[in-house]
């Protein structure tokens, strides 16, 4: 009896599971041992029905052992290896080929798509064994280069393949097609707001966090959504990273290399954002990896949640620890935060009067802690356009998203080439220790910065972040050197607008 290989998920990583089956005499029963969860335990009904659809009647007492015994097994992904193990123990199959098998079985023997197929493909590649996976998962598996994978439609096909009657279609290698994506809303649709546009362009180019402050109706949300249209497309590796996380949750594969954009409501729970649960699932912050995490109405978010995001935002990864174990998820996000200037929303408005008392205003601002603000590089005021201004700029649309996206993409390419040997892909990723040595600062920057840092009460981290933004601005204007005007512009985004 040789064991059949399957997988179970631990975080985003797929761990190999060996399925051993023994059949003895007695009244029919299936018992599964090896810490199965409810979905695995229920697989016996699916497996039995699927085998019966092939004319295989399972008899006797069936014992299924899932090794390693102390690793909890979850999900329906083990249906297929269990079915193969039983069929093999019944003597209805020739010697099974080496390989990793995954799939959820339908009662009629069809194979359904599963969570964690990408992780399984990575495991199969590292062990250089073939992978047999449901056809539904073929598109995402194709992302893993160098993995020998076969798409399986149903159990009958797989059995026919084992008997040498048919060939299974191999999963072709994925080719990233750079199709320009449709920007909605387009930058050309946004009236006015030249300052905010510029800031968004910088944010997209260097992957810097951004805070938009403005009165109700000033267009904060619209601007945030427009950001998606100017972000550079994901590279193959980045697409693999984001797909790996999505696959862990069973979300469908998104083709085209468009960076994720996750908009989170302020009632969301800490677990849904940071990740967790007994199964240690990734949260929104990881789903937004390599893309945008948008928090609208920022001060309404619970404080402990925001503080919990501090370290992950800095490190680009989040450690989810529970009693059942601990896993690490990547979360290199571009944080976009929108907020009203005060409780009533009209502080600083040219027409409407703010009715907040100074105590209320104080309380509102205190909801957002200094440490969080310190991690947001670009603070932008989004003033409301007055009705007459709106009419005046009617039709005078700015640049379209495609033009801005082209500049952003160029700036990002420069960054990739510059940081390739350090292992980074954009300016915002640089750790503090690297910043000053490699930013190629001009003569005048140091004295200028030291005079300004005192005035603006910048922290050590603040200075590093200003320099990174300055570098991005220089990249956008195609300058080799980071010069005083670049730093000056970066500092201008730093002073918090209304909030300092």
């Amino acid at each position, binding site marked *: 009896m040789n064991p059949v290989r399957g997988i179970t998920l631990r975080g985003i990583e797929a761990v190999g599971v060996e399925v051993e089956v023994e059949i003895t*005499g007695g*009244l*029919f*029963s299936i018992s599964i041992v090896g810490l199965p969860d409810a979905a695995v335990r229920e697989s016996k009904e699916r497996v*039995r029905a699927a085998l019966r659809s092939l004319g295989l009647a399972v*008899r*006797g*007492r069936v014992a299924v052992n899932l090794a390693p015994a102390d690793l909890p097994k979850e999900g329906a992904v083990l249906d297929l290896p269990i079915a193969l193990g039983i069929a093999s123990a019944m003597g209805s199959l020739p010697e099974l080929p080496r390989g990793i098998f995954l799939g959820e079985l339908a009662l009629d023997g069809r194979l359904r798509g599963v969570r964690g197929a990408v992780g399984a493909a990575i495991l199969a590649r590292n062990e250089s064994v073939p992978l047999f996976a449901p056809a539904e998962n073929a598109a995402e598996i194709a992302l893993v280069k160098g993995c020998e994978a076969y798409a399986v439609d149903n159990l009958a096909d797989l059995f026919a393949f084992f008997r040498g009657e048919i060939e299974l279609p191999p999963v072709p290698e994925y080719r990233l097609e750079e199709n320009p994506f449709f920007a909605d809303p387009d930058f050309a649709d946004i009236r006015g707001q030249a300052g905010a546009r510029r800031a968004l362009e910088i944010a997209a180019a260097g992957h810097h966090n951004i805070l938009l402050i403005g009165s109700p109706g000033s267009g904060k949300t619209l601007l945030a959504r427009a950001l998606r249209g100017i972000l550079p497309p994901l590279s193959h590796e980045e697409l693999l990273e984001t797909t790996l996380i999505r696959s862990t949750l069973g979300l469908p594969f998104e083709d085209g290399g468009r960076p994720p954009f996750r908009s989170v409501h302020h009632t969301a729970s800490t677990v849904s954002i940071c990740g967790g649960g007994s199964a240690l699932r990734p949260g929104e912050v990881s789903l937004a990896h390599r893309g945008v995490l948008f928090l609208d109405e920022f001060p309404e978010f619970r404080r402990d949640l925001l503080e919990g995001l501090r370290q992950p935002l800095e490190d680009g990864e989040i450690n989810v620890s529970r009693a059942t174990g601990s896993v690490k998820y990547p979360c290199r996000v571009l944080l976009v935060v929108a907020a009203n200037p005060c409780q009533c929303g009209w502080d600083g408005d040219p027409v409407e009067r703010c009715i907040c008392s100074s105590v209320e205003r104080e309380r509102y601002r205190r909801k957002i802690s200094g440490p969080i603000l310190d991690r947001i590089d670009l603070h932008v005021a989004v003033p409301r356009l007055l009705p007459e201004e709106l009419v005046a700029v009617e039709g005078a649309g700015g640049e379209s998203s495609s033009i801005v996206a082209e500049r952003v993409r160029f700036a990002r390419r420069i960054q990739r080439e510059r940081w390739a040997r350090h292992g980074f892909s954009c300016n915002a990723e640089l750790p503090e220790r690297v910043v000053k040595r490699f930013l190629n600062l001009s003569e005048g920057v140091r004295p200028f910065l030291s005079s300004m840092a005192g005035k603006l009460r910048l922290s050590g981290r603040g200075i590093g972040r200003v320099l990174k933004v300055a570098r991005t601005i220089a990249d956008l204007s195609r300058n080799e050197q980071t010069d005083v005007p670049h730093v000056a512009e970066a500092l201008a985004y730093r002073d918090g607008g209304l909030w300092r």
Partner: protein
Amino acid sequence: MTAKHLLTGKYGEDLALDYLKELGWTILERNVAFAGGELDIVARERNELVVVEVRTRSEGWMQSGEDSVGPRKLRRLVRTGRKYVDSRRWDGPWRIDILSVTLRRDGQPGIERFEDVTAGGDFS
């Protein structure tokens, strides 16, 4: 003098026996009695031992034969079946089938077989 319904039952079992022989099964024993229950027919289909519970009904009866086997009867069958395989030292797979015999007025009996009625359920 035997009661009429017992005669009907006996007749049904005879019909069932012929039916199973026609299927090519080997009949091992009939009416094996244990304390706590009786097995109507024990047969062998290839390498598997089958405990057959025969239910006979005359046409027009409200409840069909197969429906008259409830969870309690099923548990009893499993228990008695275990006693049987233990006593005969059978260590291969075995199962329980229900054979529902309907006696029609035109003389042609209807026979329906329900295979493996325990289906992996918990009868411990």
